[in-house]
């Protein structure tokens, strides 16, 4: 059994995942940040592969991506950094990025390398289900990697069922149809959507992402789903001075009320 399935077996409530962009703020910060997050109490990690045209991202993650690219981050460099991943980090790690850089690296070669360094799966928002099933699913399976799909309030039940069939890890439940870095809509509409998904009794755990930035939004998401992902708010922290020292307090502020 892989790390992500084990995690959800041991913990099925208030699972906290943190997203950060690889190679940001400085090129070689990637593993230090990952290690600090595990120590501070994050349950799993999403490491972003920077891309020049990140469609689904708001300004904060866009800027971190551009900085990371100009720092010299590439998939090749990232995989080199991740060679020490499992010496320093034991929680599940997903790579999140857009399809074009992966396509250029070579999907097969990428899956193989990810598996070797101990990455548990991918989130590639612009890789469509059809192309995944036709061309890449076998490769992911061969290397025992999870592929995570996104669902939004507009995704039909039928499509959610299909995604649930294709996935083995977790389902990425978008809090609303939006780019990253917006605030969570705390209205009844969100409750209705979250409970609709909850009542579908999917085989995969659901983790809420986009718009989760503090204790209030984290606990709201955790009421309905198995946990939540914080991205933009953490990337903002990385832009501040002495961010290393602030990581434990940041994680605690998500888990506990102020």
């Amino acid at each position: 059994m892989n790390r992500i399935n084990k995690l959800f077996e041991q913990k099925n409530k208030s699972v906290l995942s943190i997203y950060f962009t690889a190679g940001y703020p400085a090129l070689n910060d990637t593993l230090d940040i990952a290690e600090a997050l595990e120590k501070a109490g994050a349950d799993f990690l999403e490491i972003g592969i920077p891309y020049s045209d990140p469609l689904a991202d708001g300004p904060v993650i866009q800027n971190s991506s551009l900085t990371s690219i100009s720092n010299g981050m590439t998939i090749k460099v990232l995989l080199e950094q991740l060679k020490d991943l499992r010496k320093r980090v034991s929680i599940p790690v997903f790579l999140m990025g857009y399809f074009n850089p992966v396509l250029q690296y070579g999907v097969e070669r990428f899956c193989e390398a990810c598996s070797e360094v101990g990455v548990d799966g991918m989130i590639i928002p612009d890789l469509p289900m059809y192309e995944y099933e036709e061309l890449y699913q076998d490769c992911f399976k061969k290397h025992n990697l999870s592929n995570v799909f996104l669902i939004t309030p507009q995704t039909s039940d039928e499509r959610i069922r299909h995604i649930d069939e294709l996935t083995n890890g977790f389902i990425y439940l978008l809090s609303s149809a939006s780019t990253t870095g917006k605030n969570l809509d705390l209205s009844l509409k969100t409750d209705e959507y979250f409970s609709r998904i909850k009542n579908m009794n999917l085989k995969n755990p659901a983790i809420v992402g986009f718009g989760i930035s503090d204790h209030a939004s984290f606990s709201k998401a955790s009421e309905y789903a198995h946990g939540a992902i914080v991205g933009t708010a953490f990337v903002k922290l990385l832009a501040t001075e002495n961010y290393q020292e602030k990581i434990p307090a940041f994680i605690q502020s998500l888990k506990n009320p102020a």
Partner: protein
Amino acid sequence: MSYQVNEKGYYGVFGGAYIPEMLYPNVKELREKYLEYIQDPKFQEEYLQLLKDYVGRPSPLYLAERLSAKYGAKIYLKREDLNHTGAHKINNTVGQILLAERLGKKRIIAETGAGQHGVATATVCALKGLECIVYMGAVDIERQAPNVARMKMMGATVIPATSGSQTLKDATNEALRDWINNPTDTHYIIGSVVGPHPYPDMVARFQSIISEETKWQLLEKTGTSSPDYVLACVGGGSNAMGMFYHFLDDEHAKLIAIEAAGKGVNTGESAATTLLGKEGVLHGSRSIVMQTEDGQVVEPYSISAGLDYPGIGPQHAHLHTSKRALYVSITDDEAMQAGLELAKLEGIIPAIESSHALAYLSKMEFKGDETVVVCLSGRGDKDLSTYMTYFGL
């Protein structure tokens, strides 16, 4: 061999819909309905009526006699520059606004580079009384002030794209992000044959009026509807796709697509995508993309704002790899000279985009009786300041 899209949204290996889930419902709705709406006789009637009375179609097919004498062939210009708003872009926006109405959308978004597509979108939104938001790179807003003013006069809101390199590629990203954040009431009018399926096919169909008219006009003038050569410039490729569309299965007609070489294909300042790019995914489709080894999209360059796009439509990628059309490139200098030449020989000032197509005439060898059609995709009014600076006028 088929040069058209298959039922999965692909042209050979190119095309598809590489979009995040947030865009899926909108794109799916479009994919399921666009053919039904476009083929509806009532839609066709309204579309053709607007093209006739509002746009001013059919656009003339003009035998440029002095240009023909110079190059030793019968050269016809398809005068898209005479359309309302001054370019071919409006053929597509008229079609898409009628589609948006039928989809019940209240809010229209668009991207624009030089501003031609933005103006064409603002125009049809004014015509139909729909809200219009145009994303335009902050750098382009500075460079293209008259077009920004035109859009504003017609009631559009112009939002500067301040991300990335602040040009067309980034304006397209911002428009797609807007669509993600407004998932139900908004239609995105893409300006070229790019984007996720069905956009490349849909835009090509709306632009195909160019070659549809050309065929009967040629028949009237020459007794045959099959020319020897068809030339058009390519950025994303919408005027070229419209110009090629009804000639794709006429193997006698040699199709030539002219890309912008910028300062030269090896200078690092170029937009010659088929030469400098490789297979990749950009703005929702798999095509040929200018990019680094690591898959980061690079910023192209051309003196012509309408051609500096780092990709080409997936159908063009297919026509290129299947060798149905020949893809060549023309430098800034060659294009500028060709623009000046047309002004002097024919009294027509072309858009710098179209000048690229004209410039290729000097690279061809003719026997004297060949028929050549060049798509004059737009007029040069918008480029006057560039011509003035370049030639010191």
